[in-house]
């Protein structure tokens, strides 16, 4: 992974910079320079690529984040924001001249309003613990990325995270009402408002999903929803992935909107069976479809889904009759990534395609994998076309990672060709940065970079992400006083 050469001048001034930052914080221990401690921050969940940062700062308040950013701005030091470090795209991977601003200490609940159906939190708060704070009053926070036990709201906002249930409830941007944002120069701004509406332009909308490149979101106002009366999954088994894909399109077309439609193919089913013994049927592909409501409402929806599925040569339609059976239906799906990790190294892709193109995209991925001589397992959110092909490889075998990455790039280009995109919920980060040109023309990227120019004119904030390095080079180079032409 190519990263910009670190700024030797910044590295040489490390101790002076650390001293200024310590002086600006209530707890001087919130600045970490000890190399054994900063090592914990050398990567996120894209752990193939690592680099210890210059130092780590753990502020406790918006005011402290503002002070830290102002100093870094004055000192011309690159900054990498970090939530819980669960990014699969290298969104919080540092360079050796960068200060990491970690949100770990900022996990307070600031306000819960049942009347206004919102919760306001500091953004180091984990996703699941937001629901934990409001469920006593009958509410939940809808976006549910699979890392929700660990991932922070700040990272969710940076990546506009999704989850299994966004078919019905939307992704982070659809559930974010407001944000306190600290810009690189230390200025603080409140974006959004009631119903998410701010003054004039939708700046909140562009902050969400900007991968920590425009500002650091320190506080967030999130929409909370009343918990549904109940939920029940069914498991539907098919004799081919293509048939399962066609069934998904037919369900969506029918007008029923389940809260989740998840897909797994044979390699993935086999791995999870060995791993957790969920008792899945022996089949080429399966769907887990979850519907919500009271018992009669659930029955009504499942009857319709069954009628549709029966038109697609299904092998089994397994309805859950109890909480335990529901748990077992979800068990294999929720264990899928861990199970794959046991049998092989893998790379997880995140391309999205139109639901109507699921069957031929699955076939196309199979062809590309066969040609590359690598195995691919599929497990993904089928209802919204967000695919997660897992390419299996052997990290100890020379050249295997490179072959895997080359296949990954081909699969993502296929997703773009059929009308989809490179990433549906993980983000671009460093991982897919160099592929951006396959989805966007130079003018499209220029327009996006123009937004960063406004929020962070010096390109100090998480600057080596999202855009191909060659495309952003002039702007990043200008920071260092190099020739920007």
């Amino acid at each position: 992974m190519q990263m910009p050469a670190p700024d030797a001048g910044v590295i040489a001034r490390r101790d002076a910079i650390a001293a200024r930052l310590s002086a600006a914080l209530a707890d001087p221990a919130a600045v970490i320079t000890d190399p054994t401690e900063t090592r914990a921050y050398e990567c996120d969940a894209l752990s193939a690529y690592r680099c210890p940062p210059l130092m780590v700062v753990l502020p406790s308040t918006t005011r402290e984040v503002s002070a830290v950013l102002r100093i870094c701005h004055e000192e011309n030091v690159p900054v990498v924001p970090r939530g819980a470090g669960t990014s699969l795209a290298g969104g919080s991977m540092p360079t050796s001249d960068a200060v990491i601003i970690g949100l770990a200490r900022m996990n307070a609940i600031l306000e819960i309003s049942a009347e206004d159906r919102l919760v306001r939190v500091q953004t180091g708060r984990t996703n699941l613990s937001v629901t934990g704070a409001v469920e006593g009053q009958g509410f939940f926070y809808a976006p549910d990325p699979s890392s929700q036990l660990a991932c922070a709201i700040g990272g969710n906002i940076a990546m506009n995270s999704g989850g299994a249930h966004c078919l019905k409830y939307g992704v982070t941007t659809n559930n974010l009402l407001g944000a306190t944002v600290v810009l690189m120069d230390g200025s603080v701004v409140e974006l959004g408002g009631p119903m998410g509406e701010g003054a004039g332009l939708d700046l909140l909308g562009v902050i969400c999903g900007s991968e920590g490149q425009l500002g650091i979101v320190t506080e967030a106002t999130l929409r909370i929803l009343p918990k549904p009366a109940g939920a029940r999954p069914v498991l539907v088994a098919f004799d081919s992935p293509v048939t399962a894909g066609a069934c998904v399109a037919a369900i969506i077309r029918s007008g029923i909107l389940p809260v989740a439609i998840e897909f797994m193919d044979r390699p993935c089913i086999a791995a999870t069976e060995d791993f957790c013994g969920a008792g899945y049927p022996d089949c080429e592909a399966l769907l887990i479809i979850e519907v919500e409501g009271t018992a009669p409402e659930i029955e009504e929806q499942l009857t319709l889904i069954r009628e549709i599925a029966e038109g697609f040569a299904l092998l089994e339609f397994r309805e859950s009759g109890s909480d335990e059976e529901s748990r077992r239906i979800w068990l294999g799906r929720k264990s899928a990534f861990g199970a794959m990790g046991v049998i092989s190294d893998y790379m997880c892709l995140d391309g999205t395609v139109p639901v109507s193109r699921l069957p031929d995209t699955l076939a196309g991925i199979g062809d590309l994998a066969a040609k590359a001589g690598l195995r691919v397992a599929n497990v993904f959110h089928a209802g919204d076309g967000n695919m997660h092909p897992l390419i299996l490889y052997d990290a100890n075998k020379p050249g295997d990672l490179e072959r895997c990455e080359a296949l990954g790039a081909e699969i993502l280009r296929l997703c773009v060709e059929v009308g989809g995109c490179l990433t549906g919920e993980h983000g671009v980060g460093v991982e897919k940065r160099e592929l951006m040109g396959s989805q966007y023309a130079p003018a499209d990227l220029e327009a996006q970079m123009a937004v960063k120019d406004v929020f962070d004119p010096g390109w100090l904030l998480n600057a080596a992400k999202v855009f191909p390095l060659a495309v952003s080079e002039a702007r990043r180079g200008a920071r260092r006083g190099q020739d920007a032409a």
Partner: protein
Amino acid sequence: MRPDSEDDLAAMIRAASGPLRVTGGGTRSRPAAGEVLDLRGLAGITLYEPEALTLIARAGTPLAEVEAALAAEGQMLAFEPDPRPGSTIGGVAATNASGPRRLSAGACRDAMLGVRFVTGTGEIVRNGGRVMKNVTGYDLVKLLAGSRGTLGAITEVALKTAPIPPVRVTLRLDGLDDARTMAAMMAALSGPYDVTGAGRLPEGGVVLRLEGLPGSVESRAKALSAALKPYGHAEIVQGDADFATLRDFAMAAQGPLWRIVLRPSQAEAMLAQLPGRHAVDWGGALIWAEAPPDWHPALRPGARASRVIGAPAMLPEPDAVTARLTAGLRAKFDPRGIFGGQA
């Protein structure tokens, strides 16, 4: 000027020296100076895949044509824009026009999957796409939604569509004062009833909408009626005509009209100060208020108000940082300032 293609439009913008006023049907515009740049020549639905819940249309396509194409396949725009005669889909997007179902289904910006637009320098830019989940690069779609033509002329919009629910009913409660109006809406919106509209009609009457499969709507209507007992007897009416009244309130307004967006917990105090005919939508988060020209609302923290008919006014003024960012973005996307006065 009336371009026939996106390239034409880009050439006209590059050649323009004075201010331009980008319009569609002109049904949601505010008064502004400049030569009219009429986008109705860029019309037509370019893609509609009902099984993928996706429709793409050029900006000048009449909203009515989009709605008709969707209805023929049993689908709709979930965000329920008011159907102003002559309105175009580009105008809907550029103003983020969103009706009562915004409460549950989100605004126009939430249904927008992708845009194409031409900047003030004549660059053609594409952002987003046509798929439901997309975090590839910055979300300029949201930035363009509701930008009123100040950053670029939107030429094409990709939208997420939604199935038309087979059954709709409205629960109606009459005779509630402001406090009990808000309490009844809160009770309805805090429980598992999946309410897709909640407001108070201009003539009074709290209305709550339920939609979905027949059995589901029936059981939720029963449960919701029971939960609303403390507020009186909820009459269950088939259909949702009352929500068209709420949706179209601004179209039917007489004289100056304020649009006030606030927390529902602030609504009761706001309702007490209103001088004239008004309506409540979005469970108390939106208030439409007719008012004499010299009237201004007193806002609690976080609330916003704009006078949408009559002399333009916006309260509160944007803070200094927001103003700086807004000016910076306008300078980047329209460095010559030719997309003049619609801010």
